[in-house]
Each structure stands twice: as structure tokens, then as C-alpha cells.
């Protein structure tokens, strides 16, 4: 395959292998090593997209991440929105199209893998150009642990796109030598196709490695497509290079207009000629090598237009040798051609005044307005920038002690300077962490001929008469946002003085390229318009990410079942096997109910409830938090944290307790058993286990460190099985032959150690249902065994397993509140009707003082009551609001409270609810109303305890 725009003898692409791809519906071929952009240019495709606002044809301006025009949508092998053609490695089968603004997401799920890797090092070097390689090598030779990341498929950076010599040989020979040495060093890791995008606190740098993107459809499915590297480095050297910036002139957006350095890259890295007849417009020396190398490769250089009057002699000579005319003191004022540039308009430029214009035919207009150091990461690291008026760019000023720049990123633009800078930066970085080693000398480069300073030029004035521009003269600043010089001037005219405001007014710098080619230019134009110094105006702030990063890469492997840990109890496999449906409670999966074939949820729950109230039922209560409290002062601690007295609890007994926050609001509840004189075991609600332990530790460690108490979580050591119902005693007796289950021998709110199904167990007589009930605790690994033994023992009694829904119904019938369901952080124990749990004897406990605040003393606080709908079939929705009147007035309607829990009760043969109601206790007996679908449903306020008020059932 031969194309006229491939330069023989140039480039690093593999011309022996052809890759087929499709762009905008047309099939082309390219080669391994190409980007989509280089392959398009090689096929003479220049119009790749249309401008977002004006729809004007756009081409390829750059060769890297700074590209503002050539945005593409990948259609196959898998759709991906908005990538720059200049960074998209070509692969066989790629189907892409040019984008003018909005990308498109795939409708089908992305099945690729993404992952994350942590790395640690003494020195992280970002960028494997000359400065970065020199830094990495120097550091590696001291024995330091080094990570070198680079965004390109192969190291070398700018050297890949130039024809420079190091140690008298092509620079890439030196690159190969360095890489060989680094590869042999086990403490060095070189990551190509890896772009550092975020600098976070304490030396954390995030980098995105594109591992299989370049393989297209051939990417192996089991290898992660992209990987986020979290690199924690003691020292960091940003050798991130510089971006060339254009100059604004009329119609500076035509396809065929390209940054000069990028053209050089296309020639040297890809062997691609971006045109056949070129005009080179520059403000500095860097465009000359581009002109000369392109000329040597066969491009006709129609003119070099240099805004400077003084052009260094050696450039004049070299151009003359190739017949290239230099127009010093001239500028390009505009272009012709719509689909492609056909002519550059050149005029003398003296003291800001344009002379007579002359057209120069060309199909390629190369522009260099100077170079902006790539300081985004340095700036993210809170490095400060200063404006260097000599080069017209912001350069690093002060950095934090662990961050440095090297090479062009620091404003050093010569090869020898970059190499020396890299070595120096590494030495300084290592010395900052007290590491020394053999000195590495930078390699030799050819002596530099004298250069001339850059002439800082942001824009060329628009000629008065723009008749030859049929569509009018437009000077673009941000090509991707289609924002123009006149937009900027309109912004300053509107009164805007801050670059941040101008950016927002014009949208400059907000697009995909983050304003790499437009940011500094905007500052320059605004400064000119306002007559202030660019240095005083500053530039906009750099924020992560430095390059766009896919959502999926950031999510990594935290997807699907790994999105959030699923916590399960030891009996979980049994529940799954027996058809339980599960409820998420925090990270736990809890059985919700166990439907039988053909059963609705309502039927299943009524059946489970009936079993618990009339026979025997059991559930898996293992998720309850369990905290072992040991030490001589355990009782003192618990007295301070629970609202009631715990220190008086007798060994062998159990007590219910409530904890409040300092604000007096109930935060958790559970049972406390006294295991021994100096040992308690308390339970917390499932969702609050970790929080309660941490909270108790906070008080213990920070407030009362003198208390001799140790707290240990034993939540998962124990499996907890509530065995509930009038026949529970019979079942327990079968599996616990050593236990005297008689009510007197084993009374309510006591516990005993015994053997259950052959397993050492602790059995508590507590009840969350009002029924006779036992809570059987065994070490978790016996959980299924004991559970199944209970199933077997209970089979003759119709033992039924039940889930959280039935638990809720049973407890609600008895008005046992669920913290977090019947409370919302604004409810005190008194509001719950549990004044009995608030000790009057204790001088203080956490929360007590808040009970005497004005709001707490109000008579009309919301209190927990029962609600019975007048129609006993009506199930009130939980969350429904309660009002006083049977007609619903116009909003705002005064609300008295809300339904916190609502169920259909098998025991009551009707529906019922719990509610928090203003002055609820006083309203018992009243009829209130619940507005539902525009209708006020009458309900009777009742005592919250609706079943077995006398507590007759708890002893069986």
C-alpha cells in the first residue's frame, strides 16, 4: 500500500502491515504506529469535523492531546464518544466519524474490564521525553524506586518527532539505551500509554493506562481495557513538555492549518506529509526546523513568514540553501479556502500596522506562536505559576517541596537544556528525601547556534477590508467552542475584568481540550483589550483531570456484585436454598420473607406471623451488632451511655436499653446481658453496629480514658436465632436437653449457657414479638447446623421460618419501635412512650441534659401512638401524613404527624399502624384523618400497644 503523503524513509509506523479503518463512511488503510489523525492525513483527509457553533469545516491542528478540532466518535468495535483523532491509536476495524460537538453513548452495555493498581515509589517521573528519561535514568542509578509514565505508545516524547542527535547519533538510539538500562532495573517501572491526570494530596498521582485500546476488537476480554494507577510517590518530577500555541488571524480555522511542531511530528514519527505546499508563519525559532525538515522530505515551502524583523543567520542560510524565502517582519493576516486552505494572506507588520497584503498559495499553513509549558499537573499540585513575558507563557514558579518540573514543562526548550534539567531535577528530588548516589552526566548534544527571542503575538489585527473572505473575517480563539476574538472583546466590553468571567462569557477553555491552545491566548487578548499586564490578569485554574478519563475506568472493578460488599450471615446459604427473598439492610442481605409457591408477599407474611403467634417460628437475627464489654468499670460506662441503669443488672439477667445522642434523641437500642460481674454483652441495631461501637469508643477513649473497660465487636462470632411462639419452649426442650426450660427456672429477661443441638450455646429469654421466645446464640460456624436442628425439632410443631417483614409486624403489634423507622433523629425515648427506660435515679447520662430544653418540654411534642383505620381493610401507606379534619383544606395543610409503620395483622384480623402524632398521647381515642388520593381516611388514635397489652403471652 503506498500513499503519496507518506514520506519515504521517515516515521516509525510499520508500513509492512496494513490496517483497515473507516472514517465518515469511507474505507481507508493505515499502519501500526499511526494515530487516526496521521492515517487520515496520509490519506489526504483534512476535513475531519465541523465547528460546533458555525458548522465550518475543521481539520487537524495538532498531533497530540492539545488538538481542538479533530474530535471523533468511535462507532466500532464499541462506541465511545469524543476522542481526539491525534491520540487515538489506529487499529484494524476501527470505524469512526468526525464530531461537531456532541458525542454519542453506546446503547449496549460495555463488557470491557477496568481495574486499579496501586504503586509506590521514591520518584515518579511524568513524561518520557528527553528531560523525563534523563531524570528517570539519573534516579534509577542511585537505587531509588522509580516509576516513569508516558502517554505515548513508546517512550521518547518530542524526540520521536524530531531529527535531533544525542551523543552524535540519532536521539532515539540514546532513548533505546536508556530504556534498556531501566528495563534491567527491578526498581524501575516504565508505563507507556499511561497519562497522569490528577495530582492529589500527599504525593498521590492518578494515571490512566490504556492497556488494550490499541488492539481494537482483538483486545483480550480477560485483560483490563484501562487501568487507573494510583501512584503514591515521595517525589515527583513533571517532565510533561510544552504545547505549541497558534496565533489568531482571520479565518484561522481552515483545514490545512496546523501547528508547526505538529507537522514535524507527523513527518518524523508517522512519515506523513500533511501537505504539499506550505506557508510557515512563526513568531519564534522553533518553526524553522519544521520548515527545513518538511522541505527536505519534499514539501514545497512557499514562504516562511516571521513576524520578527531579525531572523538568526543560520536559519536564513539553511532556508536559502533550500530555496525557501523568508518574509521577516511579516504576518499571515488571513486565509482563503473553505474545505481546505488554498491561500495565506501575508502582509508586512510594523508597529501593529499591517502593510499591503499578498496572497501565497498553499495547502498547508503552519503556525507557531510560541510554546506553553504543560503545567496543569504542577498547578494541580498547588505549584504557583508566573508569567514569562519573554516567551509569552505561564511557567512554574514555586512548587511544593515534593514537586518539580523539568524540561519544556519548566520553560526549557533546548534539547541540551532538557537533558540537563532532567538530571538536575532528579538529583534535587532525591536529595530532598535524603537519597544520594552516583552522579549521572547528561549526554552530549550538538552545540546550539544562537537563536533570537520569541516575539509574543496573540493575534494579528484583522485587515480593514475583508472582501476576499466571502463569509466575513472570523478570528477564532477556542476552535472547539467556536469562540472568537470578537467574543472576547464583547466580554470585556460587557464589563468583565476577570479571565474566569471571560471564560464563562465566551465558553473558552471549557471544551474537551481544556483550552490548551486557547487559554494563554485569551489572557493575552484580554490583557491587550483592558490595557493591563498578562501577569496581573493571570490564567484560569487547572483542575483534575488533565485529560478526560472514562467513567468506567474510574469505577474500576467496583461494579455489579463488587460495587459494594454484600455482607451475609453464616446461615445465608440456607436462606437462599429455601427461597427467601432478601432485604438490603445496610450492606447486609437479610431474609425478608419466605414465600411458598404461589404465595403473595402478603399471604406469606400473614402465614409467618400466624406461626409465630400460634405455634413456633424462627428467624436469622445474626446481623444484630454485638459488643462485648469487659472490665471493672463496664457498668459505669454503660450507665453513662444508656438512658437506663445497667450497673444494677444481675449476672444472668437481660435488660433492654436505649442510647441517645448528646441532643437527647434516640440513636440506638438493644438488649444488654450481664455475662459476669465485669462483663456485659450488648446488641445494637443491624445498621448501626459499627457506628455505635465507634461512638462508645470515642467516649471511652477521649472522654473517660480512666475507665477500665474494653470493647470488642463480636457481631460475626455469633449466630443469633430468635425462636418465637407458644411452642418455642417445646422445640427448645428437644434440642437443649440439659436446659430446664421451665418458666421459673428460666424466666423472662434471663439467659443461660447450655448445649443446643450439641453445640455450646447461650440462650436468652427475650422477646421482640411479645410471644414466649428464646434467642439462641452459637458460634457462627455452627449456625447452619443448629438452624437445621431447630428445623428438624420444630417440624412436628409446624416451625416456620420468617423474615424481617414478619419481625416488623410482630414488634409493631407490641409497639416496639424500630430506631430509624419509627424515629428520625428528632424523637426522644419519652416521645416513644418509653419514659420507663429513662432513669430518674442517674445524675447524668448522655442526652439527659437536652431533655430540659424548651423544645423538649413542650406539651405538644410528637408521640408514638397506634392508629386503627376506621375501615379495617385499609392499609395506610407508611409515610402518610395525618391531619385533624375530615375535609382536606387548601394547602398548606397543617399536618399533625405521619405513619411510621403500617401492617396487616393476622393476630388483630385487621390493619393497623404506628404513627408519630403531635400531642399523640393526649389524642388517644380521637379520630384523625389520613389524606390519601384526595380522600381523608378516618383513623382512631390508640395506645400504641395493640396486641396483648397485659403481656400475658411472653411466658407462654
Amino acid at each position: 500500500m503506498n500513499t503519496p503523503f507518506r514520506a519515504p524513509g521517515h516515521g516509525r509506523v510499520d508500513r509492512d502491515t496494513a490496517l483497515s479503518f473507516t472514517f465518515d463512511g469511507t474505507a481507508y488503510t493505515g499502519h501500526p504506529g499511526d494515530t487516526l489523525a496521521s492515517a487520515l492525513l496520509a490519506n489526504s483527509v483534512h476535513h475531519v469535523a465541523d465547528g460546533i457553533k458555525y458548522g465550518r469545516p475543521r481539520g487537524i491542528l495538532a498531533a497530540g492531546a492539545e488538538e481542538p478540532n479533530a474530535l471523533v466518535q468511535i462507532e466500532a468495535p464499541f462506541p465511545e464518544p469524543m476522542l481526539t483523532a491525534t491520540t487515538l491509536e489506529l487499529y484494524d476495524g476501527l470505524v469512526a466519524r468526525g464530531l461537531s460537538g456532541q458525542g454519542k453513548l453506546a446503547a449496549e452495555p460495555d463488557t470491557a474490564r477496568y481495574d486499579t493498581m496501586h504503586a509506590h515509589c521514591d520518584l515518579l517521573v511524568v513524561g518520557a521525553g528527553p528531560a523525563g528519561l534523563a531524570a528517570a535514568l539519573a534516579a534509577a542509578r542511585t537505587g531509588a524506586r522509580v516509576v516513569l509514565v508516558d502517554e505515548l505508545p513508546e517512550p521518547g516524547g518530542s524526540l520521536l518527532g524530531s531529527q535531533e542527535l544525542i551523543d552524535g547519533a540519532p536521539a532515539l538510539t540514546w532513548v533505546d539505551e536508556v530504556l534498556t538500562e531501566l528495563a534491567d532495573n527491578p526498581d524501575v517501572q516504565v508505563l507507556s500509554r499511561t497519562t497522569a491526570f490528577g495530582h492529589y494530596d500527599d504525593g498521590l498521582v492518578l494515571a490512566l493506562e490504556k492497556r488494550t485500546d490499541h488492539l481494537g476488537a482483538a483486545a483480550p476480554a480477560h485483560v483490563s481495557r484501562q487501568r487507573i494507577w494510583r501512584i503514591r510517590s515521595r517525589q515527583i518530577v513533571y517532565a510533561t513538555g510544552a504545547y505549541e500555541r497558534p496565533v489568531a488571524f482571520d479565518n484561522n480555522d481552515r483545514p490545512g492549518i496546523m501547528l508547526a511542531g505538529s507537522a514535524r511530528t507527523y513527518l518524523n514519527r508517522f512519515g506523513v506529509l500533511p501537505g504539499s505546499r506550505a506557508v510557515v508563519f512563526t513568531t519564534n525559532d522553533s518553526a524553522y526546523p519544521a520548515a527545513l525538515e518538511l522541505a527536505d522530505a519534499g514539501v514545497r515551502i512557499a514562504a516562511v513568514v516571521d513576524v520578527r524583523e531579525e531572523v538568526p543567520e543560520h536559519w536564513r542560510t539553511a532556508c536559502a540553501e533550500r530555496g525557501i524565502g523568508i518574509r521577516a517582519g511579516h504576518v499571515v493576516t488571513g486565509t482563503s479556502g473553505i474545505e481546505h486552505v488554498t491561500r495565506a494572506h501575508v502582509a508586512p507588520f510594523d508597529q501593529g500596522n499591517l502593510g499591503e497584503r499578498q496572497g501565497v498559495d498553499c495547502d498547508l499553513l503552519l503556525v507557531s506562536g510560541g510554546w506553553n509549558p504543560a503545567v496543569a499537573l504542577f498547578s494541580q499540585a498547588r505549584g504557583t505559576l508566573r508569567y514569562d513575558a519573554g516567551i509569552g507563557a505561564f511557567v512554574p514558579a514555586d512548587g511544593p517541596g515534593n514537586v518539580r518540573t523539568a524540561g519544556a514543562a519548566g520553560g526549557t526548550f533546548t534539547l541540551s537544556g532538557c537533558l540537563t534539567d532532567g538530571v538536575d531535577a532528579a538529583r534535587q528530588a532525591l536529595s530532598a528525601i535524603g537519597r544520594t548516589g552516583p552522579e549521572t552526566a547528561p549526554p552530549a548534544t550538538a552545540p546550539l547556534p544562537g537563536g533570537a527571542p520569541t516575539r509574543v503575538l496573540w493575534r494579528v489585527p484583522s485587515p480593514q477590508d475583508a472582501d476576499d473572505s466571502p463569509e466575513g473575517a472570523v478570528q477564532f480563539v477556542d476552535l472547539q467552542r467556536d469562540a472568537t476574538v470578537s467574543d472576547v472583546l464583547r466580554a470585556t466590553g460587557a464589563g468583565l475584568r476577570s479571565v474566569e468571567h471571560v471564560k464563562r462569557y465566551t465558553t473558552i477553555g471549557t471544551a474537551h481540550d481544556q483550552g490548551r491552545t486557547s487559554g494563554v491566548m485569551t489572557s493575552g487578548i484580554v490583557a491587550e483589550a483592558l490595557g493591563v499586564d498578562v501577569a496581573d490578569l493571570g490564567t484560569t485554574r487547572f483542575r483534575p483531570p488533565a485529560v478526560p478519563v472514562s467513567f468506567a475506568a474510574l469505577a474500576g472493578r467496583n461494579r455489579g456484585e463488587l460495587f459494594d460488599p454484600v455482607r451475609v450471615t453464616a446461615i445465608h446459604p440456607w436462606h437462599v436454598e429455601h427461597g427467601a427473598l432478601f432485604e438490603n439492610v445496610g450492606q447486609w442481605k437479610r431474609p425478608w420473607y419466605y414465600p411458598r409457591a404461589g404465595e403473595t408477599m402478603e399471604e406469606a407474611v400473614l402465614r409467618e406471623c400466624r406461626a409465630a403467634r400460634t405455634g413456633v417460628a424462627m428467624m436469622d437475627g445474626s446481623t444484630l451488632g454485638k459488643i462485648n464489654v469487659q472490665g471493672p468499670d463496664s457498668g459505669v460506662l454503660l450507665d453513662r451511655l444508656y438512658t437506663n441503669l445497667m450497673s444494677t443488672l444481675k449476672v444472668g439477667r437481660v435488660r433492654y436499653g436505649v442510647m441517645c445522642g448528646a441532643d437527647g434523641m434516640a440513636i440506638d437500642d438493644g438488649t444488654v446481658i450481664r455475662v459476669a460481674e465485669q462483663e456485659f454483652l450488648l446488641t445494637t441495631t443491624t445498621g448501626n453496629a459499627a457506628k455505635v461501637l465507634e461512638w462508645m469508643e470515642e467516649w471511652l477513649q477521649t472522654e473517660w480514658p480512666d475507665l477500665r473497660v474494653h470493647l470488642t465487636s463480636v457481631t460475626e462470632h455469633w449466630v443469633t436465632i430468635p425462636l418465637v411462639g407458644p411452642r418455642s419452649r417445646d422445640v427448645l426442650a428437644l434440642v437443649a436437653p440439659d436446659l430446664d426450660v421451665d418458666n421459673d427456672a428460666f424466666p423472662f429477661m434471663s439467659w443461660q449457657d447450655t448445649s443446643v443441638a450439641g453445640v455450646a450455646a447461650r440462650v436468652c429469654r427475650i422477646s421482640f414479638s411479645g410471644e414466649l421466645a428464646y434467642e439462641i446464640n452459637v458460634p457462627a460456624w455452627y449456625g447452619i447446623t443448629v438452624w437445621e436442628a431447630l428445623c428438624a425439632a420444630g417440624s412436628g410443631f409446624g416451625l416456620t421460618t420468617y423474615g424481617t417483614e414478619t419481625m416488623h409486624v410482630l414488634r409493631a403489634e407490641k409497639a416496639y419501635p424500630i430506631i430509624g423507622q419509627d424515629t428520625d433523629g428528632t424523637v426522644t425515648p419519652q416521645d416513644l412512650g418509653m419514659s420507663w427506660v429513662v432513669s430518674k435515679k442517674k445524675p447524668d447520662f448522655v442526652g439527659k441534659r437536652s431533655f430540659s430544653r424548651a423544645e423538649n418540654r413542650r406539651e405538644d411534642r410528637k408521640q408514638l401512638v397506634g392508629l386503627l383505620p376506621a375501615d379495617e381493610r385499609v392499609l395506610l401507606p407508611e409515610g402518610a401524613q395525618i391531619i385533624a379534619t375530615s375535609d382536606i383544606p387548601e394547602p398548606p395543610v397543617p399536618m399533625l404527624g405521619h405513619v411510621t409503620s403500617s401492617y396487616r395483622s393476622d393476630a388483630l384480623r385487621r390493619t393497623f399502624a404506628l404513627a408519630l402524632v403531635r400531642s399523640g398521647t393526649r389524642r388517644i381515642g380521637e379520630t384523625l384523618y389520613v389524606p390519601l388520593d384526595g380522600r381523608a381516611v378516618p383513623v382512631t388514635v390508640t395506645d400504641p400497644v395493640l396486641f396483648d397489652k397485659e403481656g400475658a403471652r411472653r411466658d407462654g
Partner: protein
Amino acid sequence: MTVETPARFSPLAEWQDRLAQSPAGFQVRELPCLTQLTLRVQPGGAAAKAVESCLGVTLPGPLRAELSGDVEVLWMGPDEWLLVAPDGRQDDLLARLRSAIGDEFATVTDVSAQRTTLALSGDLVRTVLAQGCAIDLDPRVTPAGSCLTTLLAQAPVTLVVHDGAASGVRLLVRSSFASYLAAWLVDACTEYR
């Protein structure tokens, strides 16, 4: 009623087969039902000395584990250690320790079923763990005998380095998180199959 020895099921009993299929360079197996006791004692005091003499080891300092005896001692906090011993030793150890402690203020709690243990070995161990562990596992930084309570992905773990190349690592994980961790490890190995 005669009772056979009741059956026990470790948290990863159902994962054995999947864990056994790990790639070359990464072996993982559960060490189920180890004896584990939480010891809380002020270091250097009389109770600590009594415990040390009872166990025949010195309680290790921060981030260290004492792995030489048949009771391994893992540092968990400034006054907290996890004693790890072979299956079935809890009653005996509890009794011995409590008797050694006597009336001093120190506590021992049986937490044997609170966590299960995974034994990892092979050349890929560090690489696989580096996908989810933010701590530098380079043997120069985290040598054998290191004991780190930290996060592995989203699971709280105690990571004990058993040999110098960090290729022999124990992970102690709360029982309820064990299946998450197993799923995470199996998934992390996908690339190396």
C-alpha cells in the same frame, strides 16, 4: 439423645472450588475455624508480663506479628492483640490466660468465628493485592512479620506477611465480608489465568 459431633461450616466453605482454580503464581485457600482470641492489655504492665510468660512470647509492637510459636500474636492496636492458634484451642487458652491475668485489668474474648483466614502464596500475591491495597507491600517496606489492619478493596482485613518476598500472606477477614473478599480475589485474578 445422642449427638454426633456437630458439623461446622466456615464462611468460605462454598468457595473452595473457585478459590482452588486460581492461576499459577497465586494460590489461595481458607484456613477455617482457627482459634482466635482478642487480648486487651496495657503493654509493659504486670498483666502483659503474665500473658507473655503464659504464651512464651513477647507481645509484638505496632504493625508486627509474632509468628514463631503455635500461638501467633498479631498486633491490632496499642493495647490489643489477636491470638491465633490451631482449631479447638480456645477454651484451653482462655482458661490459661484468664488464670495468668488473675485480678489484673486485662481481658480476653473468644472471637474465633468472627473472622476467617485466607492463606495466599505465590509470585503474584503482591500484584493481586496491589489492585486493592493502598499499602506499599514491597518487602523492604513491609517485611515478613508485618501485620497491617487495613482495607483490601472495600473489605476490612488484617494482612500478615509470612515470608520475606511478601509471597506468603495471610488475610484475616470478618466472616460476613468473606464471600465479598473471595469474589474480589477471584475477579482480581482474571487477568492472570
